[in-house]
């Protein structure tokens, strides 16, 4: 791939395409999980989890380790089935369309529902710019104004000011926090309607965490966000709604014990176990 960043040319005269997928809506969408159960081989790890994740809202998934938050999140964009032997029951609707129905291919689903992983995973063989554009390349979408898209995505991820002048360096040459924001930019470049984040800050220092949290806040208007976090303050800071997952007895599958507006979940939850968890009394 040749890279030309020409400052002289008025590259941004073309309107920035908000719609790289022809015909695909780009407005934030509502995601609804309906009676989701999940298995790894014979072992059932989630049971009948239903959750509404509204457009323009940040939903936080909280709960002790091993209760199935990551599994639930991965089911939301069909990444669960990538693991051999992984099984599901139930359905997930994106603005009313079942993503498992066959109306949408898994690759299409994943371009509309992006994902950011716990461990920053920029592609080491690519430059920063190529990383941002990787999603377009992978999903075979063409975009006429790549420079503008790179800048826009990096700005939305809060990274442009730090790397705007070294787009042709390798993606691994960044700090952990910058790498994570690069991964966010990479996910945003395909203009998803929903962004799933699995403990995006767990590998980051407090300042980078702050920056990523601000990024999340700024993104919430354009894209529905679902975030898994172990950090109760973070959940309280960034989310509008919260869902509390729990394995009640060891060996049982995880369930959603309670969900609701974040303020209520933290101040006066209905379930005693939720209160114990959010106040740090167990978990």
């Amino acid at each position, binding site marked *: 791939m040749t890279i030309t960043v020409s400052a002289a040319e008025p590259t941004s005269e073309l309107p920035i395409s908000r719609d790289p997928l022809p015909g695909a809506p780009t407005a934030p969408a509502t995601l609804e999980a309906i009676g989701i159960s999940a298995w790894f081989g014979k072992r059932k790890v989630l049971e009948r989890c239903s959750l509404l994740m509204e457009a323009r809202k940040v939903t936080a998934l909280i709960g002790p380790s091993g209760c199935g938050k990551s599994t639930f999140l991965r089911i939301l964009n069909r990444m669960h089935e990538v693991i051999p032997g992984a099984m599901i029951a139930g359905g997930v609707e994106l603005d009313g369309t079942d993503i498992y129905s066959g109306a949408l291919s898994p690759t299409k689903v994943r371009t509309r529902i*992006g994902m950011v*992983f716990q461990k920053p995973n920029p*592609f080491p*063989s690519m430059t920063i710019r190529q990383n941002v554009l990787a999603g377009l390349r*992978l999903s075979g979408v063409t975009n006429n104004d790549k420079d503008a898209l790179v800048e826009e995505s990096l700005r939305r991820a809060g990274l442009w000011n730090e790397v705007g002048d070294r787009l042709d360096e390798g993606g691994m040459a960044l700090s952990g926090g910058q790498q994570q924001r690069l991964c966010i930019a990479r996910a945003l470049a395909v203009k998803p309607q929903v962004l799933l984040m699995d403990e995006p800050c767990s590998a980051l220092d407090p300042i980078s965490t702050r920056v990523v949290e601000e990024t999340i806040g700024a993104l919430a208007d354009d894209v529905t966000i679902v975030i898994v976090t172990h950090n109760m303050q973070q959940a309280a800071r960034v989310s509008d709604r919260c869902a509390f997952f729990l394995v009640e007895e060891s060996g049982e599958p995880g369930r959603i014990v309670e969900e609701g507006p974040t303020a209520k979940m933290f101040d006066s939850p209905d379930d005693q176990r939720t209160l114990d968890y959010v106040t740090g009394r167990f978990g």
Partner: protein
Amino acid sequence: MRRSVVVTVLEDVSADLDVPRRPTVRPVAGDRVFRAISTAAATVSLFIVVIALVFLVKESQPAFRAAGYWKFFTTNIWNPSLGRLGVGGLLVGTVIIALIALVIAVPLAIGMALFINEYAPPRLRQILTSVIDLLAALPSILFGLWGKAALQRQMIPISGWLAAHLSVFPFMRLSRQGASLAQSSLVVGVVVGLMIVPIITSVSRDVMAQVPREQCEGALALGGTRWGMIRAVILPFGRSGLVGAVLLGFGRALGETIAVALIVSLVFKANFHVLEQGGGSIAALIATRFGEAGDLERSGLVAAGLALFLMTLAVNFVACRVVARTSAV
């Protein structure tokens, strides 16, 4: 009282000597023994290689002196009674056969490795992996026999077709009408190619299995297909390892002896008409001549072996440079 003195002395020393030093470790007994054993093993194997090399160089001297160093590598003649020896054409022929083998083997092997790793269901993956290992252990004489007894006959019409339809490539042309299509470099190249498929498959499969899961999932989560993931993540990540796997196969193909000796009809002049009867191979020359060779010819065969060794060395050297450069990105 005493302690404080010692401390003072230490502080003085460290303050004065602001020079870099490596902290020293006194190894424990078990570690010392193990270190001695492994050092000995390393020395012995290096020593054996050096001895072998010295032997080869020494034994080859009569031939080099008789034929002339330069001429030995540039002429195409094998007449020990006149003292005229030259393996230039055979060196070229060896490379031709090895290249044909690579053209056959690399796509098959990489495709196979990708299939096993990325597409095959778990059960099939296990079966295929053991089958590949089994094939890698098959003695090359079996490939040779099969090539001579079975494949050759099937190859003749294919060679004919290639000659008729791909004559835009000079090496696919025939030098004259009705030339024999048996015992050609192509037939040998195909046999050797199939022989090196397992080793290339096995190594590249290992290399590609090293790609971190997060990387692959990252590509899939961006809406990539399996093939997209392979192109964006697996192949770039495994690039230097894959080059290594291919070179391993190339080295084998260069040195392959029995199968080549069995099939090809040896000609000393480089034959670029790969579809036609007659090809060259250093290893096959040595294998077929060594038994009845007199002193000078024997020395000439050792010299030919040395030439093969140097060529393999050169290939590896170039390959290392390529790998070092491409993986530095």
